[in-house]
């Protein structure tokens, strides 16, 4: 929980889904770009609080040393520290109960088909997801996504009458996970979304008079994608 401890006491957090791309600009001013179809892993840069007491952070530093740039850790933004919940909070109109009644029908590329048949007490214009909502799938899926367009719930048709589905577009393709079947799984939103990250470089910490410590730089984290 050491990376989580650093995040919970962060001064600033940069969250960047990283595309791999190239761009050319012609002499006539035309811009063209090419994107390699990578997993677009999240890069999260965390600036730690400027100074902490050494006694309070010995365990955190020890755990960071153990993780180093080799091991990964699951983190959240806003669940273990509710003070950060505004960063990832769900923006739609669905109740927690209705969210738990959603399930994935299928997916293709960067869009998922969400089964809304079991949602209750909604209006067709209610927002299911707003652009910027963080979502992932339940039952052990490791990768979060960002919804890129507002989606209304639409007319809900119960399963007995044929059921209803809504298409949700994501910021990156659904990533294959060994042993995991996406179809039929539920959806987690907002603060329930987690990332599995690993340090790209480990900052040094400086022990200074007055029993304080300071980190030499930010924590550079990268999302770990299964091979």
């Amino acid at each position: 929980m050491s990376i989580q401890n650093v995040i919970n006491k962060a001064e600033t957090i940069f969250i960047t889904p990283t595309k791999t791309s190239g761009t050319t600009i012609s002499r006539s001013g035309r811009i063209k770009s090419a994107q390699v179809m990578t997993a677009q892993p999240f890069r999260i840069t965390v600036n730690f609080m400027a100074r902490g007491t050494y006694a309070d952070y010995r365990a955190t530093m020890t755990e960071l040393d153990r993780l180093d740039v080799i091991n990964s850790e699951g983190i959240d933004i806003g669940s273990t520290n509710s003070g950060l919940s505004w960063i990832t909070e769900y923006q739609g109109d669905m109740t927690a109960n209705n969210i738990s009644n959603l399930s994935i029908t299928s997916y293709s590329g960067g869009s998922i088909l969400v089964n809304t048949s079991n949602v209750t007490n909604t209006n067709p214009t209610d927002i299911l997801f707003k652009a910027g909502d963080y979502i992932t799938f339940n039952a052990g899926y490791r990768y979060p996504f960002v919804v890129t367009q507002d989606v209304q719930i639409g007319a809900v048709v119960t399963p007995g009458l044929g059921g209803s589905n809504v298409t949700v577009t994501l910021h990156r393709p659904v990533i294959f996970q060994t042993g995991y079947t996406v179809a039929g799984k539920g959806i987690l939103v907002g603060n329930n979304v987690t990332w599995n990250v690993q340090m790209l470089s480990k900052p040094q910490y400086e022990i200074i008079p007055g029993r304080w410590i300071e980190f030499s730089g930010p924590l550079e984290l990268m999302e770990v994608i299964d091979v």
Partner: protein
Amino acid sequence: MPSTIPEVANATIKHALFMDLQLGDTTYYLSDAVSPVTFGNVDYFECGELLQVSSLRNDFKSTQGTITISLSGIPNKRDYMNIVLNEKIKGGEVILYRVFYNNNFEPQTAYLRYKGIISNFNIEENTDVINGVITNTIVLSCSSIVTLLNKKISGQRTNGADRRRFYPGDISFDRVQYITTLPEFG
């Protein structure tokens, strides 16, 4: 024959590199795509091994295209280090395809980019104990078919059997061995 690639006319393209790599008796299917993809009845299942492919040279004339392919030396699904060291990899076929995706990140069309064979390999290992950094990379050097043809040794040996491969019934080389063998005296 030149290929028409309509996708490159778009202002923004999305693409991935798919690779058929023959090492020993087995062909491995690698890609730099986000997830495993089945394309042309082949599962390009290995997405965590391909580090780099050097730039490809395209000419109107047939030229000797040599490329290098870098693979991770850290075993994941496969232990390529072990495979490269223990299999007969020289001469294994390498085929590269460029696959274009649509805006929903779905693969659409594949185009052949390179076809050649493995001509050499190199393992790059660096250890920096002070800074705690190690690198472990397998570099495969690949030669195009044109390079192979340029290296091809052609001609005819001066014996009767080889002569008759080109000129059936010709016996003029049958006695060459007696001419070249020095007689023993005494």
